[in-house]
């Protein structure tokens, strides 16, 4: 008699037809044109990027497009030094919250072209895009962010976005 059975493999696979939805599609179409397009809430007038289709505090649709610039501020960051499944960048690297100029919310982005120990809260950065011929409606159109040489933003200027 062989060994008792103690485990059961149950592979699972389900296919979905994913829809990005109106707001995310609008944002990614902008990315395909090399632009960050945020949306302003008609009620609280805050600018969201990426836009989520609705203002998360007011629960109303955001429809007013705002084209944002390429520069922003690192509000806070961490140094990623752990390998994990699906990772595409060599460790260690900087993962930062970046507040684009004119936006009222930061999003997470990769910082390169600077040693990890020289990244600072308040550092001014700019987006580095892939070659325009490769722009598409995907976040991979933005390679990463890098320091743009401007003096650091004062803490008070971004403290409320932490």
């Amino acid at each position: 008699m062989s060994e008792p059975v103690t485990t059961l493999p149950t592979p699972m696979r389900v296919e979905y037809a994913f829809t990005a939805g109106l707001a995310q599609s609008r944002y990614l179409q902008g990315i395909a044109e090399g632009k960050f397009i945020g949306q302003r809430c008609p009620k609280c007038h805050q600018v969201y990027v990426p836009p989520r289709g609705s203002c998360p505090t007011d629960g109303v649709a955001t429809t007013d497009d705002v084209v944002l610039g390429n520069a922003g501020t690192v509000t806070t960051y961490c140094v990623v030094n752990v390998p994990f499944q699906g990772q595409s960048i060599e460790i260690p690297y900087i993962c930062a919250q970046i507040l684009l100029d004119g936006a009222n919310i930061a999003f997470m982005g990769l910082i390169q072209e600077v040693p990890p120990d020289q990244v600072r809260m308040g550092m001014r950065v700019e987006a580095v895009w892939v070659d325009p011929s490769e722009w598409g409606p995907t976040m991979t159109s933005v390679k990463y962010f890098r320091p743009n040489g401007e003096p650091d933003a004062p803490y008070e200027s971004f403290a409320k976005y932490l």
Partner: protein
Amino acid sequence: MAKRCAVVGVGQTKCMAKREDVSIAGLVREAATRALEDAAMDWSDIDAVVIGKAPDMFEGVMMPELYLAPALGAVGKPMLRVHTAGSVGGSTAIVAAHLVAAGRFERVLTVAFEKQSDSDAMWALSVPQPFSAPLLAGAGGFFAPIIRAYMRRSGAPDHIGILVAVKDRLQALRNPYAHLHIEDISFDMVKDSVMLWDPIRYLETCPSSDGAGAMVLASERVADSMATGRPPAWIHGMAMRSEPTMFAGRDQVNPQASKDCAADVYAQAGITDPRAEIDVAEVYVPFSWYEPMWLESLGFAPEGEGWKLTDEGATALDGGDIPWNCSGGVLSSNPIGASGMLRFLEVAMQVRGQAGDHQVDGVRRALGHAYGGGSQFFSMWVLGADKP
């Protein structure tokens, strides 16, 4: 008006990286059976069952309460399944308690579990969707920048996170159910562990565990007539609050929902000075730095000074005036969907004097806490030895 409700039975499993000796049903029954035994009840005594867990993709079973209904003796009874992200273990207990507080039922079994070793927790938490940005950092990468913001804001010295990591692991050595039992845990061991998501070191993070927790909640009439000899732990207050994951001007370090939830639960319990009036707390600390952050948010210390309590040993089981996470906390055991319930049931054990080697003497009131999502979902309860 809300009826009184008490915890009259608790049960939990040993947490481990892989519970290879049980099925999913076997795991939840281990906790539930112990809670029933503690309450001196049988399956047939229970009126309703409320179960919680984090995403179904951990086990690959959609709405597993359907499959688990008979395993939890729920046939012919109401059964609810709660999912509020990481806070779910706490909110599950609260939903169950409301069934009693609303006067609907007298004996409610509540269970939370995760058997995340059936899959890979990291995979189940981060299924990449089309068009989303490539995965940058994992869970720690979400919270590490927030921790850095706290350090900047409070001026807390680097070693605070290490102190918490050591303290909770030392306390875990006194809890036989804890997953991590690191006998030689030390300041240097944590300090020298790999910096995974600077400023978070490996030993400052929680493990991935299989585990379950369960409680029997009872009406005043039932709790008063218990013949188990063990006192009930009365609910003095319970509250939940949510806020959006991200919005302009959101305080991610000290979320408003956390402060509002604490204010609500303290108001219900008549607490005005948490540090003085609460004897012990089990607070959801998955990364060590969340202890000083929650000390402030929960009103145990003024804003910017939570780290000082940790630094002076106020939160330690040995010698502290407000011991936090005597069980070892989430840093020592983390079956995600059950982690909140373990916090909630550990304080019940403290109030009932059944916490064994990690018992704090003479607990009259205790705070159980859980949070989840992007620090946006909060659930808390205050239990007391006296009838509210």
